[in-house]
């Protein structure tokens, strides 16, 4: 590391923030692009499991709410890809790398949404897990990303509200509805526990070293458990992990998440990975004429 890079590292570790036009080490820029691009990909791919339920949502109100959520998430991906673009990687290239399988997206978006219960669990708990990671980005050393996270976190909190409303409505319904929620929770618990990543110490995590994120993976998982396990329990739901408990030091203990599954899934081998990437490819081809028309009209 050169003296200038060392000085930069100390600056961000001391809480300093960086703007687009500031000098930055190549490694920092590369890490930023990788991290933020994966976030953009996840926002874009994250709408697909929910999109499948727009037409099947139980009421008109739910259809509208789900449509609005999908619009929010796509909007987030647009804002996030803009941040990546200003760092040097064009949006078209991000989309290309996404559909060719070169870049990654979050594990939770590789799984099927079997029932309306899954939609509720996604909107409530997947978004809750995501907002914990996202709140840790409000202090990101790269200021343009941190600023855009303010808007995104605000909208994500709204999604959790929507998800909780879906879940509470079902829990107050019939036994069958309650079963749907429990089954969905059983399906999603594994991926949710893997969501924050393997518990590498923050000091060894390059994303923390550069202060792209402000907390370690294990810390984020603890926060998630602390915030949401009590909310799950109070509804009479069972968390499918008999080892889950809070110990005397206020630390949650749980069964080791399946890290092999996580790796397998995010490298393109999830149950729905290929189908969803295929859909992205097809949609991109089918909407090519729209982009051409828009650009021709503007020219």
């Amino acid at each position, binding site marked *: 590391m050169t003296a200038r890079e060392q000085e930069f590292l100390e600056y961000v570790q001391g809480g300093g923030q960086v703007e687009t036009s500031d000098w930055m080490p190549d490694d920092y820029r590369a890490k930023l692009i990788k991290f933020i691009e994966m976030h953009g990909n996840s926002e874009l791919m994250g709408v697909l499991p929910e999109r499948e339920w727009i037409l099947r949502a139980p009421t008109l109100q739910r259809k509208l709410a789900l449509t609005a959520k999908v619009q929010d998430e796509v909007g987030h991906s647009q804002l996030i890809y*803009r941040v990546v673009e200003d760092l040097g990687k064009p949006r078209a290239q991000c989309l290309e790398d996404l559909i060719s399988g070169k870049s990654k997206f979050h594990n939770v978006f590789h799984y099927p949404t079997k029932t309306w219960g899954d939609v509720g669990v996604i909107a409530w708990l997947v978004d809750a897990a995501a907002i914990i990671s996202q709140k840790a980005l409000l202090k990101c050393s790269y200021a343009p990303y941190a*600023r855009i996270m303010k*808007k995104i976190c605000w909208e994500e909190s709204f999604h959790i509200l929507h998800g909780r409303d879906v879940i509470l409505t079902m829990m107050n319904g019939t036994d069958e509805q309650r079963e749907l929620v429990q089954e969905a929770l059983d399906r999603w618990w594994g991926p949710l526990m893997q969501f924050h990543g393997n518990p590498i110490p923050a000091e060894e995590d390059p994303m923390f070293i550069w202060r792209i994120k402000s907390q370690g993976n294990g810390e984020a998982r603890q926060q998630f458990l602390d915030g949401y396990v009590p909310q799950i329990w109070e509804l009479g739901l069972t968390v499918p992990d008999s080892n889950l408990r809070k110990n005397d030091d206020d630390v949650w203990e749980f069964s080791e998440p399946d890290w092999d599954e996580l790796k397998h899934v995010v490298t393109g081998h999830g149950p729905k990975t290929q189908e969803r990437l295929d859909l992205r490819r097809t949609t991109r081809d089918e909407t090519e004429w729209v982009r051409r028309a828009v650009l021709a009209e503007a020219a």
Partner: protein
Amino acid sequence: MIWEVFRQERKGQAFAHAGSVEAPDAEYADWYAREQFGRRGESVALWVVARENVHEIGEFVDELERNYHRVDGYPLKEKLKEARERAGTAAPADR
């Protein structure tokens, strides 16, 4: 083309940078800006500016040390102490 969007949260407040949108012309840029930053009543007005029209000035060199423009050009504490000693008075709070 990239367009920078500034957002006013309430009447009377300063416009603050909200983010940027990509759009082929000003009309599309307006619609993208509306969707991104005004959909939930979070703004009362937006400014949409082509990025090339935003000029950034990031360096403020004060070669002549013009401290008479700044608060630190007026160190009153010591002078006031001396003045009070001359007048034989105490600070208002001590009286």
